[in-house]
């Protein structure tokens, strides 16, 4: 495996891990449910996506051959993250989970 590819893999892995961590930090530190919702839905999705890409490249350079399952993982993650977020937000709005004080606008309660 040439060094360049190794660098790319390493960079993707680190990027992915950092994004994952940042998403988690967001989940841990952001002030209310609705702001926390942003962390996982993107940072984590992107983070895992980067790692999946790294994995794909890694195995493409291994003797046992390529695979594209990683792409499918990404597809499913991207496909499912929005409805998950939607459903959770709906639940939170329904339960009247308090929003942080400086939020403008109102959630619905439908």
């Amino acid at each position, binding site marked *: 495996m040439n060094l360049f590819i190794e660098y790319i893999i390493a960079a993707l892995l680190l990027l992915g891990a950092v994004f994952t961590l940042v998403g988690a*930090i*967001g989940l841990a530190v952001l002030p209310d449910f609705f702001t926390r919702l942003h962390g996982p839905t993107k*940072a984590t999705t*992107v983070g895992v996506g980067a790692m999946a890409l790294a994995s794909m490249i890694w195995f493409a350079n291994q003797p046992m051959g*390529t*695979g*594209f399952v990683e792409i499918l993982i990404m597809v499913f993650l991207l496909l499912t993250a*929005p409805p998950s977020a*939607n459903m959770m937000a709906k639940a939170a709005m329904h339960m009247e989970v308090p929003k942080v004080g400086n939020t403008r606008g109102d959630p*619905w309660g439908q």
Partner: protein
Amino acid sequence: MLGRLSFPQPWLSLLLFSIWQLLADGVGGGSVVVGLILAWGIPQLTQSFWPERPAVFKAWRLPGYLLLVLWDIVIASFEVAWLIISPRRPEPMFISYPLQLDCPQAIAILASTISLTPGTVTADISDDHKILLIHALDTRTAEEVIEAIHNRYEKPLMEMFQ
């Protein structure tokens, strides 16, 4: 009778066929045969689960849109990451987004796009499919968000579905 042998949803069949080639780790004789069988059989089994299909769907516009969204996801993710790490408190806002799209599939794609692109999450779709409720993580005004979404995503979608 012949109708049953056709591909009821050709785009889906194509998609499934491609997915199978991905899953089967490369295109080969066996994977093509099995892929074809599945690409034919699965839509047959599931077509009744898609009762209302969009009247117009310009599928060729989809890849471009997806690339756009993907790019936005990557770029904007950094913004959110920065926002999370930075000590500044975000200024969140609930925004009602007036929809111009009316096809439910298109609305779902738009809502998903909004959710995936950093800084906004679709919190809800109104029952009459006229308004999206968006939660923006950090924005000054509602208008800039509405504007951005409308121009960047809703317009291409309207072209695709109308």
